[in-house]
């Protein structure tokens, strides 16, 4: 039983990280129909930014903020320099995102080499919840992921900008007619999604350390999570993130750990067979 709860915690931790990364992917797709696989690089960049910050003595909490800022700027830059020009043809945007992966990964290897970069665990010690020992660090990760996700969901529902985003995702022409600044919205979504991904990178640094291939490993999962949750739906990404995290953790613990990644893949195939649009109604984005 203790083992079960231990895995449960692990699943929630990794699931929270998946959710953070997936939100950026799903929001961007929902608004622009763009499949941005370069989002994974934003995670890596954020992770390395956090590592560099901590290496120069900056406290971890601040490093997370820095990672979020760097991630946001990187993501926004991708949009301004590249994706802005492929809006009319999202598949070209997809190809462009693949090109960006190569460029960013190459640049990161130039700068950091291909070894694992770690930091000392920022938050030491564990707490006992029932029979289970949970490290404070893991709690922190879950906490940060949950707070950021909930904050975003609230922002989408309550703020003017959030409502405009949802309106544009639902019905782009009408929203544009009503004066919604579509360009600004798209940039904002890239910025916010990138910030969340950057923060996720910092969190991953604290848990496992970062390598230049970190993003590549996580971006496929992010898309799996987005598909399961329904492309365009933030709630879907949050719930699906947890689902995939749990599926992987339990599958890895009770079935086989060399098949870890596979459990998420199986889950997405099953979900799509039953509900082709994913669990939640997302949006079809700019494509009416």
């Amino acid at each position, binding site marked *: 039983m203790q083992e079960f709860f231990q895995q449960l915690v692990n699943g929630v931790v990794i699931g929270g990280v998946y959710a953070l990364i997936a939100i950026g992917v799903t929001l961007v797709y929902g608004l622009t129909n763009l499949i941005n696989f370069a989002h994974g690089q934003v995670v890596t960049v954020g992770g390395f930014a956090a590592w560099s910050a901590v290496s120069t003595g900056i406290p971890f909490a601040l490093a997370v903020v820095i990672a979020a800022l760097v991630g946001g700027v990187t993501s926004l830059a991708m949009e301004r320099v590249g994706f802005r020009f492929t809006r009319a043809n999202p598949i070209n945007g997809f190809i462009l995102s693949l090109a960006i992966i190569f460029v960013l*990964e190459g640049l990161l290897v130039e700068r950091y080499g291909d070894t694992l970069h770690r930091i000392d665990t920022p938050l030491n010690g564990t707490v006992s919840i029932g029979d289970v020992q949970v490290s404070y660090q893991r709690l922190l990760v879950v906490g940060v992921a949950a707070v950021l996700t909930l904050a975003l969901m609230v922002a989408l529902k309550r703020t003017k900008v959030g409502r405009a985003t949802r309106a544009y995702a639902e019905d782009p022409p009408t929203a544009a007619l009503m004066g919604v600044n579509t360009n600004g919205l798209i940039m904002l979504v890239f910025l916010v999604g990138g910030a969340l991904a950057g923060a996720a990178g910092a969190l991953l640094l604290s848990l496992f350390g970062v390598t230049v291939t970190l993003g590549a490993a996580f971006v496929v999962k992010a898309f799996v999570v987005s598909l399961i949750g329904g492309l365009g739906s933030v709630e879907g990404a949050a719930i699906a993130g947890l689902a995939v995290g749990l599926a992987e953790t339990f599958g890895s613990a009770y079935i086989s750990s060399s098949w870890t990644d596979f459990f998420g893949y199986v889950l997405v195939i099953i979900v799509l*067979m039953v509900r082709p649009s994913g669990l939640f109604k997302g949006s079809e984005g700019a494509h009416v």
Partner: protein
Amino acid sequence: MSDTTLAPVRPAAWWRPYVPVVVVMALLTLLPHVGLSNRHVHLSVVCLIWAMAAFGLFVPYAFAGQMTVAVVTAWGVGAFSTALAIEYWDWGFVPNLLFSMAAAFVAGALMAMPILRTKGHYFVIITFVLAEAVTVAANNWEVTSGPGGGGISVSQPIEFLGFSFAGRISMYYLCLAAVTIMALTVVWLRGSRLGKHFASIRENEELARSIGVSTTWLKILALAIGGIFAGAAGTFYAYYLSHIDIRGFGVNQAITLILIVVVGGRQAILGPLVGAAVAYYLPELIQLDPNRVLIGYGVVLGLMVIFLPTGILGGLDSAWKRWQRRRRQPQPSEAPLLSKAGAS
């Protein structure tokens, strides 16, 4: 340069689209004789094999408009089919080739099935997931991961029609022949009734449906046919490189294949060949370290997509057409320039 747009051919000139392919391929037979180093001949063979695999993406993407990452998986299926057939059943070249093509066709068709349940762009994501999933599965299966996870070796040369294609140069000619056959087949396919159906899906899928075209099944067929080409590429890959590894058929290779098709030209039959040449000769000429090559690939692909989406051959074709129009009708505003240049 003759017309490389996708026009149906009028009966009188049915042979015209084949001409560029035949001419270029004939010229390429001279390549080993122009004093290239061994390394360059080797690169040329690798180039040709990548071009074959790129045809596996060209058919579904350039013809039917269906992008896929899973072409790399079909390529891997082809390579492993040949390697395993040699290892377990000691088959010869022709049975291996046919087996690989058939296995990759089936793999391509199976991986295309999600089209039945997904809409539009979702499928592209699924192909990415499928490629990753198969990689994980293959890594866990001793048959494909090889002894100690180190891959599988193929130590036989190709024996075909009484010849043994053991050396670099003989492999070059064999691969050149294979690419020629593939390119000619693709030309034929483009002008065929099936090819026109594919084009309609690419150009306007909903309109195609409204005129009775079963777009879903045809997309699956396009992907499966692409599989055949990728599978054949796998056979040559296994024989020539003598060692295959699951890591050789992953997402990085898929991105390279996409680069090859896009950079070469999405509307030109010889695009895969031109793209493969850029991908493999250019780094050689510029002498970059592998990491810089990666960055270079990314930059080239990115710039192509934004500024020259029709690729090198497409860009040349447009430039040719613009030049021809100018020659026929000089614009009044250009007259001063022309007289400056001395043209009438």
